[in-house]
C-alpha cells in the first residue's frame, strides 16, 4: 500500500476533528446556557426513530473500534 496524499490526510484531520469540535462546542454552549444537553435531544430522536438510532450507534461504535483498537 502507498501513502495517502498529504492533502487528503489534512482534509480528513481538519474535517473529521473540526466536526467533532463543532458539535462538542454546541453541547458545551447548551450546557453553559442551562439548556437541555445534546444527549437529551438525541435520546428523543432515538425513541422516535429507533431503527435509525440503532444504525447510527452501530456504525459509530464500529468506526471507533476500527480506528482505535489495533489487533
Amino acid at each position: 500500500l502507498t501513502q495517502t496524499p498529504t492533502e487528503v490526510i489534512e482534509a480528513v484531520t481538519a474535517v473529521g476533528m473540526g466536526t467533532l469540535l463543532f458539535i462538542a462546542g454546541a453541547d458545551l454552549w447548551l450546557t453553559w446556557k442551562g439548556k437541555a444537553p445534546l444527549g437529551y435531544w438525541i435520546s428523543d430522536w432515538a425513541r422516535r426513530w429507533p431503527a435509525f438510532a440503532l444504525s447510527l450507534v452501530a456504525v459509530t461504535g464500529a468506526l471507533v473500534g476500527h480506528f482505535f483498537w489495533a489487533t
Partner: protein
Amino acid sequence: VALTTAPRPSRTEVTPRSAGGGWSRWVSIVLLAIAFLVIAGVMVEGLQYTAAHPGQPPCGARPVPAPRGTNDQLLVVGICVLTFVLGHLTARWQAGPPQPGRKPELDVDRMRTRGRQGMFVQLAVTIFLAEMATLLAIEIITLSTNHWPITWYVRCAYDAAGWQTSLGGAAITFLSGRWFWLRGPGRVS
C-alpha cells in the same frame, strides 16, 4: 390559598431542582471543555506535523506499527471505556432523575424555543452523520485503491505520540458516551 404567578421553568431548561444541583452542570462544563481542548490540541498538532513533514509519517516506513503490547493496549481501551461511562454519567446527572407522570405543558413560546433548539440539534446530528459517512467512504476508497487507510494513520500517531493519541481517543469516547448512551424513560427536565 395564595396563587403565585412566578414563571415556571422551561421544559428545555435544566433547573437546579430538576438537574440535581448546580454541581452536575459544572462537572459537565469542565469535562466538556477539557474534551474540547484535547481534541483541538490533537487536531492542531496533527495538522502542524503533516504540513511540516509531507509524505513522512512519524512512524517511518513501517506501514502498520506493531502494537506495543496487549497489556498497554488494553489499558488504553479500558481508559476509553471508563471515559465513555463518565460521559454518560455527566449527561445523566445533568438531566436529573426521571420524573414519570409529569406532562409537558402547552406553551407556544416554549414550543417555539424548543423548535429552534430542535432544529439546531437536528443540524448537528445531520453533520455528524455526514462525517461518519465521509470517513467510511474514505476508508473504503483508500483500501480499494491500495492507499494507507485512516486506521493506519491512527496507529502511526499512537506509535509516535502515545499519550496524546490516547487522550484524543478518551475525549472522543467521552463525547460518545455523553451523546449516545440513552437517558432513562419519562424524563422531563
